[in-house]
């Protein structure tokens, strides 16, 4: 092999690869927006994916939501009791669950359950040349596989996180009811009393962004899987790690923005 006289890397090998990766991920995301708006739309596959994703995550979200509701209530009660303020419990729970816990917990569960699933599925399609097979039979694999999955997570995860919040509040209600005999209606009225329009929209926006993140990262990692079967496991694993990290960053940014809007 010939040696090249020019420098091989702009910075160092690792940094070059890092920025190369960032650029690729950016192009992948840009491609999504370009192709999502163009015909043909695979509605059937989209519905199918929404159903799959919902079904895959539902049991775990139900369980986790319910337990979080109960545990969080049990843990908050003593602190409020010290001030004789247990009647505030429903409002506190409403804020904590609807604004913060619901979307975040759902996103974390889904990046583990759904994101890794997408990464592994597309990764194995990539290494066994199924994606190439689509391409050579004149089917656009990006449209059929990526666009449908990313839209599906973007639609499904907000619904799941609303569901998670409701289940968590039911968990809390069971605990509150057993102690204070609060009625179901009053509990929910109190829980939502301190939540305003902006809070609700922040929660929805967060869930939409999280959903998009999980879908696009799972697809990106899967589509770029290499090195035979070990690449599939790597793709799934990296999809989880990377989407969790980005979700935390997004959480902070969105909360900041929402607080900033509130000051007006």
């Amino acid at each position, binding site marked *: *092999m010939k040696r090249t006289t020019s420098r091989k890397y702009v910075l160092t090998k690792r940094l070059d690869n890092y920025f190369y990766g960032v650029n690729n991920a950016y192009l992948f995301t840009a491609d999504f927006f370009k192709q999502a708006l163009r015909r043909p739309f695979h509605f059937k596959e989209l519905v199918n994916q929404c159903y799959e994703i919902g079904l895959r995550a539902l049991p775990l979200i139900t369980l986790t939501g319910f337990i979080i509701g109960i545990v969080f209530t049990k843990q908050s009660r003593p602190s409020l009791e010290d001030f004789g303020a247990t009647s505030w419990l429903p409002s506190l729970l409403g804020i904590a669950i609807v604004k913060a816990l619901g979307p975040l917990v759902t996103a974390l569960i889904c990046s583990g359950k759904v994101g890794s699933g997408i990464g592994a599925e597309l990764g194995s399609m990539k290494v066994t*040349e*199924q994606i190439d*097979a689509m391409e*050579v*039979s*004149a089917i656009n694999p990006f449209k059929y596989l990526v666009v449908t999955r990313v839209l599906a997570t973007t639609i499904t995860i907000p619904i799941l996180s609303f569901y998670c919040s409701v289940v968590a509040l039911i968990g809390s209600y069971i605990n509150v009811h057993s102690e204070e005999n609060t009625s179901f209606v009053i509990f929910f009225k109190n829980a939502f009393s301190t939540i305003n329009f902006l809070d609700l929209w922040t929660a929805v926006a967060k869930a939409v962004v999280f959903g998009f993140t999980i879908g696009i990262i799972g697809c990106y990692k899967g589509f770029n899987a290499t090195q035979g079967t070990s690449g599939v496991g790597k793709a799934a694993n990296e999809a989880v790690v990377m989407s969790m990290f980005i979700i935390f960053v997004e959480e902070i940014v969105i909360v900041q923005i929402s607080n900033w809007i509130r000051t007006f």
Partner: protein
Amino acid sequence: METLHVIDYNETVISIKDLYKSFGDLHVLKGVSLDLHKGENIVVLGKSGTGKSVLIKIISGLLKPDKGEVIVLGKKVDELKRKELNELRLHIGFSFQNSALYDSMNVRRNLEFPLMMNYPKLTKKEVDAAVEEVIEAVGLKNKLKEMPASLSGGQRKRIGIARTLILKPKIMLYDEPTAGLDPITCTEINQLINEVQEKYNTSSIIITHDLTCAKATGDKVAILIDGQFAKAGKFDEVFNSNNELIKEFYNYNFIQ
């Protein structure tokens, strides 16, 4: 071998001139030229890792060449827009080395899928008729409901070929059609390749490192050594040559 098909030497369906392709420092193809005529079967032989798969991936537009000209059915592959490329691809059947069947779909869905995606206006009746025809052509009528995972290697190959036939290709590209199969199944696949050629009137490039397959299916063989075709011509012609590398290849295959 007795050829039952007619080769039209006036019509070239694939024309490759001085093709180069490297991956970083790895120079895989170094000036490959090839002409495939209408109705002809060319076998490309070569050790693994010599760039045989890369060659047909360039023909189908999956990889871009660094230099050189690739003309398929009168179109320059690397200069086509996505839409034009897809139109061309409808005429090219690609049989993958490991069959690349869609794992999540049963055999019937695998066969229907390319047809329904490309021609959404077809009625269910028309699609069913097309499926019926190709599954019969590969002789696996009773497997339509099965999932790819439950098929044997030879059966997967057949379904993979059927899946490309459903689009009625003019050109077939076979990537190692007999690799990893037992000798009897190999013979059956060779037979299938010849049947497909007669029935669908295709021109084919068959990649292999199996000389029995080459002899059974090829009108012409070309040997890829070190990024270039060492020799091309009729089977006996090529293997009677004095080139050491070709002799080595021949002996190795038959001693095995």
